[in-house]
């Protein structure tokens, strides 16, 4: 069922109005709270926009890595299962922590998260 304007659009407009019309009127604690609200709206918008692409490139890279290292059998079909398999393999020493391919994968997974939660953090 189509519902327009969609969620991401609503969030974008809500955040814009908050920034332009409300935030300039606030000080102190209320200003801090409004900034938190703006931040939450941004994250939610980016998360919705990112969820349009499935499976995400990061999830595909994760599953490919687990397959390549012979850990693919334990991974569930959802990304959460695959990430749990990875975390467990690291904790149990079944993957060499010094493996540069592991480090590259971890960077990719983290960068994907940051593009949603705080893209500015990657900027520098």
């Amino acid at each position, binding site marked *: 069922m189509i519902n327009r304007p969609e969620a991401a659009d609503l969030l974008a407009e809500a955040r814009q109005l908050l920034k332009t019309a409300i935030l300039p009127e606030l000080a102190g*604690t209320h200003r801090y*709270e409004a900034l*938190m*609200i703006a*931040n*939450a709206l941004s*994250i939610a918008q980016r998360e919705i926009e990112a969820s349009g692409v499935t499976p995400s490139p990061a999830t595909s890279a994760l599953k490919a890595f687990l397959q390549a290292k012979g850990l693919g059998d334990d991974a569930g079909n959802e990304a*959460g299962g695959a*990430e*749990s398999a*990875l*975390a*467990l393999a*690291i*904790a149990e*020493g079944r993957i060499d*922590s010094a493996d540069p391919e*592991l*480090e590259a994968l*971890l*960077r990719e*997974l*983290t*960068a994907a*998260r*940051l593009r949603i*939660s*705080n893209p500015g*953090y*990657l900027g*520098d």
Partner: protein
Amino acid sequence: MSASSNLATALADYIAVRTGARQVAVVSFDRLSGGAIQDNFGLTLDIEGGSHPGRQELVVRQDAPSGVRESLTRPQEFAVLTAAFAAGVKAPEPLWLCEDTSITGQVFYVMRRARGTASPKQLVRAERTDAERAALTRQFGQQLACLHSIRPPVAALDFLSMPEEDAALSRIHRYRDYLHGIDEPHPVLEWALQWLERNRPPTGQWVLCHCDFRTGNVMVEGHALTAVLDWEFATWSDPCEDLGWLCSRSWRFGESEREVGGIGDKKDLLAGYAEAAGREIDPFRVSYWEVMALVRWATIALQQARRHLSGEQRSLELALTGRMVPQMEWDLLQQIRELNAAGMPKPAGADQ
């Protein structure tokens, strides 16, 4: 009477009794910012007679309804503050501990109010000459060295647990156990814990550590440190736990090039420390504990997110803190890569 003037009056009456004053008048009473977990109030009194006559600028610190697992109770915090103050640390002077909850409804203690500001934004953005910046940073080092002169056992601090093993190993086990108890995978944190375990420096000495000494918890007036605040996480640990936490990338508040809390350089911190302690600290040991600090802060953020997720304390601030974990994970990936490239770890020399 408003609720807050009731509270102010109750506190004033209590202090009158403790000090043996003839009369106590409330000059001002306000809730202080900071501290999601404790309630802090500023209280200014005019006292006639008794042990503390005159105008007294005080802070009252009591439990807020929710707590965090690691933190000390108010009476324990008061004991730590007393020990630190007695050792010459610029902790706020602890005055009166009240364990009678009929006064305000909570256990509380009263301490002297320090001058200046602890606001990270103000401290990090303040205009300072190089000399002023270096002097302030050296003071941080001196203060930590002074605190670290307190060694176990100390009878008044017998509530602090002495880990049986090495401080780093005990932290690694604690964070790993925590991660394995939650329903969310964190491969980057597991990877960092593997690195921390493999690259541990030799066991150091046990000293009293503040464990949250950072920009945000130090009061500064002009270019001088006036007080170290928020002692609720103090415990016995390795001295570099405090130095690493202070230098962590997480607490630079936008001034990422200034290694010490967004304010100064590590060389000045370590120089101030060495001057006061009479011994040098290996900078690579500090870097190790900066990595530990990132993992610790990530687990704290996960705990805070869980307070929200479980419904225990629904809060946008707690929820957003949970979404900060990828930043710490990114910093871990960066810093471990840099340390590996620099040939870390250099084995520390003699025990620190």
